[in-house]
């Protein structure tokens, strides 16, 4: 076989693979998480204690998708920290202590390990704390996932909106859209790839039809339309996203070709 024929064969193989990779798998393998910026705003010269604290913060968040900066600002009364994502202010913190566990938490670790193990998506259910609101939607989620052919590669996790251990995570989720903080309703976030949270389904929007559309979105062949304009917000997390296990959804699709959709 001539060298040019071999090249054409390899190139067509790569192209055919690129077109059949599922959205969730392609994003996990190829799309870097967007960085947050943590800014320390101060008016006066930084004292030694704060310098050490800021160095400590730098070390803690070193391998997370975040950069740390110090900025002098004359129009402020007292120094503070601000967490910014793509020009949107997510939170402000008055002290170093408030930043504890900014980029790690137990639930985020669990979710990341599930994503790295080849799961299609983690359905993260953010509860209000009011069982009358939370329970009906949870039943719908569990019932829909149990009836889905992809149930083995879907995970449902619950998170209380008032959780103190996960306060930073909750805050980031409630910043996925600008109005979520004011809406005291249960919300369902599809978390996939390198901790990307889709804009949530909430209240009556948590329906079997919409949950199945979420699954369809993640199991569809990755088109350039999706790649170029990827929805969702990256959650801040310290993790090494190298070498995830192969996507488990491919086995389900191989065994059930009727599920394939483009």
């Amino acid at each position, binding site marked *: 076989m001539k060298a040019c024929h071999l090249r054409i064969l390899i190139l067509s193989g790569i192209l055919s693979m690129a077109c059949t990779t599922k959205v969730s798998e392609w994003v996990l393998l190829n799309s870097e998480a967007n960085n947050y910026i943590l800014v320390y705003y101060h008016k006066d010269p930084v004292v030694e204690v704060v310098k050490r604290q800021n160095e400590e913060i730098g070390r803690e968040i070193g391998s997370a998708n975040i950069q740390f900066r110090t900025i002098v600002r004359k129009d402020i009364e007292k120094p503070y920290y601000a967490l910014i994502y793509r020009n949107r202010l997510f939170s402000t913190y008055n002290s170093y202590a408030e930043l504890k566990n900014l980029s790690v938490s137990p639930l985020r670790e669990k979710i990341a390990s599930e994503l790295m193990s080849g799961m299609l998506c983690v359905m993260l259910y953010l509860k209000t704390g009011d069982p009358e609101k939370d329970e009906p939607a949870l039943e719908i989620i569990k019932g829909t996932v149990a009836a889905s052919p992809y149930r083995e590669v879907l995970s449902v996790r619950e998170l209380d909106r008032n959780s103190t251990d996960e306060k930073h995570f909750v805050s980031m989720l409630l910043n996925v*859209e600008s*109005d979520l903080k004011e809406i005291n309703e249960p919300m369902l976030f599809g978390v996939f790839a390198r901790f990307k949270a889709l804009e949530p389904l909430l209240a009556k929007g948590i329906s079997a039809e919409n949950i199945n*559309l979420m699954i*369809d*979105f993640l199991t569809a062949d990755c088109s350039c*339309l999706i790649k170029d304009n*990827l*929805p*969702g917000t990256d959650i801040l997390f310290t993790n090494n996203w190298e070498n995830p296990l192969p996507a488990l959804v491919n086995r389900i699709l191989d065994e059930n070709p009727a599920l394939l959709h*483009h």
Partner: protein
Amino acid sequence: MGQDTLEYRSLDDRPLPRWLTDQRDGLNQYQPEILEMKEDKSLTLSFIGTGAVIILVVAVLTVYVLRNRKSRY
């Protein structure tokens, strides 16, 4: 997929996420090319071209034959 929330009156009116409506409406997929009928002039051009070639060949042969005849007599 600009995702930020639009203004709405009540929670029931709150728009669904764009990724979801696009998925529902099939907009995340490649859209098939819309084929439009265009006026096809190729046959007419083909006839004109063929006719022109025939006329040219006949004219050339006529001139050639007439010249040969004249030179014989």
